[in-house]
């Protein structure tokens, strides 16, 4: 224990002594135990004050010191150093805060003095328990992270880079330059912002030791000064460094959105560059959310892309784009069940885009124009692959593998190719010549087809392997109709839907009854019913056990069926079939009611007792479902693992079966599914087989599998520049013309007639360009240096730095919150940044001042203090507005003959050259009116007055109410903290001041550091300031950081936890408490141990240890107990 304590009490000028009787406190202190000397002085922190302490340490042999003055956060370091120089350990010192925590917050002298005594006493008692401690040192990583690459970040980066040390510069936009890059001229010197900024931007890109990361943000920060570990997320740019900035891609991009860089007053394409001098000078593709239509497609067809191309009347390109990914595009254009449309966001507005019809249109157009597409040149490989089944799954797999060069043979059991496409889907939906067209293309690709080759007979897995096939894809489909399981089902005249369709489609003689019943509600049922009609049936009735709402068939198929005269009985199910002597089939039916939803989500059908009745037909076609042919598992496939449902079991990701080298997909795995789902499986299988043959592990698949999407409702936008779904003007979906019903049933002519060019363009124009880039890949085709890569991924980059500078800038106050100024409602009311862009020669008007009607304004009103110096929004002054408002006035006068009115509260011209500038602008005859504007209103309702405005205000210098007519209003919006500043604050563990800007360590003496060591701030993120102040602060911060880099190490407070081994019982309570995982359990000694390098000294474990075995150095229990006692005298 220390028993020679010196107490030094500061007056702090009069700051302390006005409310605290310093003499009395000194007197009090001198009487406390262990105190050998107590003194007071005007400024303890001054040189003589410190000398006084040091002298006493020497003369009075002090072993501990208390200073009662300001906050330790202000001067603790000063006095620690003084003690050390005086000859005692720097930690044998305690500071008592009698200024911030006493004299400044109280006004009664007796009470304040009493409290000061308690505070001093606590420190005296505490310091008696202090022990000498040695600071620890940590190496400083010389690399620096700078977040935000506006002028502040750029300046600091250049300053530090000059020293040769590495800098990581992280910017969230696609270019550096920040807000300054948007300005036209700067006040008061009127140099052009771009001219002074761009050379600096360019030097950033030239510096080898500056690692620039654009479109990036910091995701995680660990560690402490000297050694931070930072994770940065870099968004994909989709254009690499090969980009030569030739602009060719912009010419072909079909998507236009408002351009953020021009404050949404101009348009740009999805692939774009923020502005011509952007750094890095590479283009960037704006991909926000992935378009849902593309994501929903099992083969990831670029639906949005070809829709956009059709809108631009680039039909050929649209057809080519479709072909690129789709081996069966014509088929899909006609019979796909189009999950893309189901997911289409336009559904939130009114109806989805007719994507499938548009696809069909593009390909029909190409065919009509005689545009034939030749397969690409392929380098052949020797490996052989066998595909069993020529349905959509098999064909897609064969196509993808053939395109990779494999020698692919497709084995088809029937005499015709196409699987269900050929024998399931009737010709009026998919004309045969079109299917042939697809098959011809596949043949040209080098695929060999073997018909009448049934799996299980001559062809078995073993035989194929013996013949040298390295992999087999089993896609035999599901061609066996599921039985109804009722009495009399085997009667003559009963034939399953798939069997019936197959016979008709293959032209096998088959008798169709006159009065036909089809049982089921799926697409097969519809196909069978409509085919029966075309085969001469007079009456076709569909019996379905649920209602229309639950029907799995595509709604338009059901409509078509009904139009053709097919009757549908809902809520009915057959229970028995009996064939009468006259050959008629008596079908006993029962009525159904719907109960609770079952596992599939559809309501469970419940038969109504006693409702049995008999219906009479002469043919019954059950078409409830299909299964794979059970024979598959007997011959040649007997080792295949079979699922409960009679399908082949595969690994969901790789589609691998239980037999090596054998993969399977499509209906034979999924049960009856859709063309596109089968194609997706074929594609995945091809990737698997390719990996398998190349000896790669079956993981990291690139082929697409649609994910669940979250419905978001109409309060959402397709992309960040678009209105909400509910605010988008409605426009009807274009329907497709069809053959009239009476003409249809006469034969197998295609029912749907396709879109005309006009219809297609009209429909395509409804697309909302969700996510901006629609992946039409036009840019890829046009880019000569091959710099575009749509598959680029976001990246996580880990970096290690010693110090961090935040220069994250500001946001502009959104003036639409202050409705009286009409921003966002009235034309020609502009924000300051919008006006800057209008003034800029690279802006939307090329630097011309123009009203919405294209005319030059005759009078302009500039209103100061929008959102700042305003109790309702921000109380602070934004500091730059007066001056840029004057700059605006000057530029207006310079370029037009317009009158300029300035409405100000106080004119603040505090900087170098500002007052002179103010006078100059006054001379240029700008009218200044002192008074806060009440409102901006339209000048009148007539057409002539439209677009003209009136500013109502009080002129406080003449005490008059005034109304000033103008053509344009410019608002001087406040500078406010960025929307993400709370997140950033948290991430870097710093604080914000009450105004929301980042809190500096000291408002006057340390405006660039924060309370967290090693983290600095510069520019407007610390508070509003102009460019010179920003640059100075950034340079100052850089100097601070360079000093520490030069020193190479930092001193860390030795406030750390320590375990006294003999007291630790090994209860391990502390182990899980430590947020830094600094506490481990030593299993051998059965005690916990602390890794001092990881400990940060929070003391949580100290407080939690039931045995009090952990000591918090610098904050020990004894010290705090003593402090408590001392505080309560």
């Amino acid at each position, binding site marked *: 224990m220390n028993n020679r304590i010196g107490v030094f009490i500061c007056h702090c000028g009069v700051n302390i002594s006005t409310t605290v009787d310093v003499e009395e406190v000194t007197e009090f202190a001198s009487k406390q135990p262990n105190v050998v000397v107590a003194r007071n002085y005007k400024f303890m922190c001054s040189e003589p004050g410190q000398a006084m302490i040091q002298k006493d340490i020497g003369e009075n042999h002090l072993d501990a010191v208390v200073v009662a003055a300001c906050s330790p956060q202000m001067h603790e370091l000063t006095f620690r150093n003084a003690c050390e120089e005086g000859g005692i350990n720097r930690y044998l010192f305690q500071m008592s*805060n009698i200024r911030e*925590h006493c004299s*400044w917050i109280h006004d009664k002298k007796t009470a304040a003095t*009493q409290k000061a005594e308690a505070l001093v006493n606590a420190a005296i008692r505490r310091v008696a328990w202090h022990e000498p401690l040695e600071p620890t040192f940590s190496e400083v990583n010389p690399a620096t992270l700078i977040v935000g690459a506006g002028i502040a970040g750029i300046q600091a980066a250049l300053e530090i880079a000059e020293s040769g040390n590495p800098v990581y510069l992280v910017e969230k936009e696609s270019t550096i330059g920040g807000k300054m890059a948007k300005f036209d001229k700067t006040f008061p010197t009127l140099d052009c912002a771009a001219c002074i900024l761009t050379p600096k931007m360019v030097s950033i890109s030239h510096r080898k030791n500056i690692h620039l990361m654009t479109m990036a943000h910091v995701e995680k920060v660990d560690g402490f000064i000297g050694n931070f570990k930072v994770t940065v997320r870099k968004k994909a740019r989709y254009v690499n460094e090969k980009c030569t900035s030739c602009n060719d891609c912009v010419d072909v991009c079909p998507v236009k959105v408002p351009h953020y860089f021009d404050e949404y007053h101009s348009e740009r394409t999805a692939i774009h560059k923020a502005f011509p001098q952007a750094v890095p000078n590479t283009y960037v593709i704006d991909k926000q959310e992935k378009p849902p239509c593309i994501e929903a497609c099992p083969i990831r067809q670029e639906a949005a892309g070809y829709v956009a191309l059709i809108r631009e009347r680039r039909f050929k390109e649209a057809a080519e784009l479709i072909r690129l990914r789709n081996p069966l595009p014509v088929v899909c254009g006609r019979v796909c069940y189009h999950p893309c449309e189901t997911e289409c966001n336009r559904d939130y507005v009114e109806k989805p885009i007719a994507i499938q019809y548009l696809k069909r249109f593009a390909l029909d157009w190409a065919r009509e124009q005689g545009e034939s597409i030749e397969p690409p040149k392929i380098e052949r490989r020797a490996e052989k692959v066998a595909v069993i089944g020529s349905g959509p799954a098999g064909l897609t797999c064969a196509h993808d593998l053939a395109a990779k060069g494999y020698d692919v043979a497709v084995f088809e059991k029937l005499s015709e190719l196409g699987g269900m496409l050929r024998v399931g889907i009737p010709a009026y939906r998919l004309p045969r010549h079109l299917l042939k067209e697809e098959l011809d293309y596949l043949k040209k690709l080098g695929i060999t087809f073997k018909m009448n080759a049934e799996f299980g007979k001559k062809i078995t897995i073993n035989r194929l392997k013996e013949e040298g096939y390295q992999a087999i894809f089993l896609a035999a489909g599901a061609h066996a109709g599921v039985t109804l399981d009722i009495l009399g089902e085997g009667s003559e005249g009963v034939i399953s839907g798939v069997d019936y369709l197959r016979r008709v489609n293959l032209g096998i003689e088959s008798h169709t009854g006159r009065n036909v019943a089809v049982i089921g509600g799926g697409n097969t049922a519809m196909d069978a019913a409509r085919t029966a009609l075309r085969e001469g049936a007079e009456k076709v009735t569909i019996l379905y056990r649920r209602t229309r709402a639950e029907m799995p068939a595509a709604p338009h198929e059901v409509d078509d069926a009904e139009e053709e005269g097919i009757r549908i009985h809902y809520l009915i199910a057959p229970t028995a079939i009996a064939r009468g002597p006259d050959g008629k089939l008596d079908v006993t039916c029962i009525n159904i009611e719907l109960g609770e939803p079952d596992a599939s989500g559809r309501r469970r059908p419940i038969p109504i007792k006693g409702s049995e009745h008999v219906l009479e037909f002469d043919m019954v076609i059950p078409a409830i479902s299909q299964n794979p042919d059970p024979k598959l598992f007997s011959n040649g496939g007997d080792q295949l693992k079979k699922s409960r449902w009679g399908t082949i079991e595969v690994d969901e990701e790789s589609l691998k079966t239980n037999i090596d080298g054998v993969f399977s997909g499509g209906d034979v795995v999924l049960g009856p599914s859709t063309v596109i789902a089968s194609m997706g499986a074929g594609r995945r299988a091809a990737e698997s087989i390719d990996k398998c043959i190349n000896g790669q592990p079956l993981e990291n698949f690139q082929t697409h599998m649609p994910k669940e999407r979250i419905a978001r409702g109409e309060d959402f936008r397709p992309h960040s520049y678009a209105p909400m779904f509910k605010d988008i003007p409605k426009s009807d979906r274009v329907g497709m013309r069809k053959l009239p019903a009476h003409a249809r049933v006469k034969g197998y002519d295609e029912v749907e007639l396709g879109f005309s060019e006009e219809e297609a363009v009209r429909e395509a124009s409804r697309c909302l360009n969700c996510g901006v880039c629609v992946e039409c890949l036009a840019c890829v085709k046009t880019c000569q240096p091959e710099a575009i890569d749509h598959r680029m991924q976001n990246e996580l980059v880990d970096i290690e730095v010693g110090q961090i500078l935040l220069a994250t800038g500001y946001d502009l106050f959104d003036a639409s919150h202050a409705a009286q100024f009409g921003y966002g409602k009235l034309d020609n009311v502009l924000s300051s940044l919008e006006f800057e862009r209008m003034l800029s020669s690279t802006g939307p008007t090329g630097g011309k001042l123009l009203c919405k009607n294209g005319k030059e304004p005759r009078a302009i009103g500039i209103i100061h203090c929008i959102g700042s110096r305003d109790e309702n929004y921000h109380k602070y002054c934004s500091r730059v507005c007066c001056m840029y408002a004057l700059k605006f006035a000057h530029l207006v006068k310079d370029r037009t003959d317009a009158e300029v009115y300035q409405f100000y509260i106080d004119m603040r011209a505090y900087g170098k050259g500002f007052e002179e500038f103010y006078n100059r602008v006054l001379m240029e005859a700008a009218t200044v009116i002192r008074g806060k504007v009440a409102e901006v209103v339209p000048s009148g309702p007539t057409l002539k007055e439209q677009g003209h405005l009136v500013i109502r205000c009080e002129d406080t210098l003449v005490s008059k109410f005034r109304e000033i007519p103008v053509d344009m209003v410019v608002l001087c919006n406040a500078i406010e903290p960025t929307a993400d500043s709370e997140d950033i604050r948290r991430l870097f563990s710093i604080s914000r001041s009450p105004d929301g800007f980042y809190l500096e360590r000291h408002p006057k003496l340390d405006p660039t550091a924060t309370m967290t060591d090693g983290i600095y701030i510069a520019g407007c993120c610390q508070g509003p300031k102009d460019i010179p102040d920003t640059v100075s602060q950034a340079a100052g911060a850089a100097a601070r950081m360079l000093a520490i880099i030069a020193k190479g190490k930092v001193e860390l407070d030795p406030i750390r936890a320590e375990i006294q081994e003999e007291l630790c019982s090994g209860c391990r309570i502390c182990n899980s408490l430590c947020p830094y995982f600094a506490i481990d359990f030593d299993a051998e000694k059965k005690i916990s141990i602390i890794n001092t390098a990881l400990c940060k000294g929070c003391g949580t474990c100290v407080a939690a240890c039931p045995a*009090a075995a952990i000591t918090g150095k610098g904050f020990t229990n004894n010290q705090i107990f003593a402090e408590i006692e001392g505080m*309560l005298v």
Partner: protein
Amino acid sequence: MSGFEPKILAFLCNWCSYSGADLAGVSRLKMPPNVRPIRVMCSGRVDPAFVLKAFASGADGVLIGGCHPGDCHYAEGNYKALRRALFLQRMLELQGVDPRRLRIEWISASEADRYAGVVADMTEIVRALGPLNLDRWEKVRIRKR
């Protein structure tokens, strides 16, 4: 009981609440002189024994100030502090001590007003509760180590 001025001890974490209290000083916000702050690195350092010791040594109330949830400089010390405070309040109540004598508050470095408000409010509450009469307690001795 007129003229009773309670003594309240405040354990303030270095990063948020202590800085908030400093800002209150810098902003010259006036508040009653009854609250006496003790700086700790984190509210998680506040050992339940500190609180008991404070009461035993004559405090009429104890305030614990920490960073807002999610803001603790050491990630989660404030959650631990909250857990301990709630537990202590239950224990105090069993001992016949009004649980309002122990209070935990989240005060950030910028919330000077909030700090001043809490100080005024707590002073008033504890003043109304009157002096903490500890005679019923055994003379609490807390081991020094």
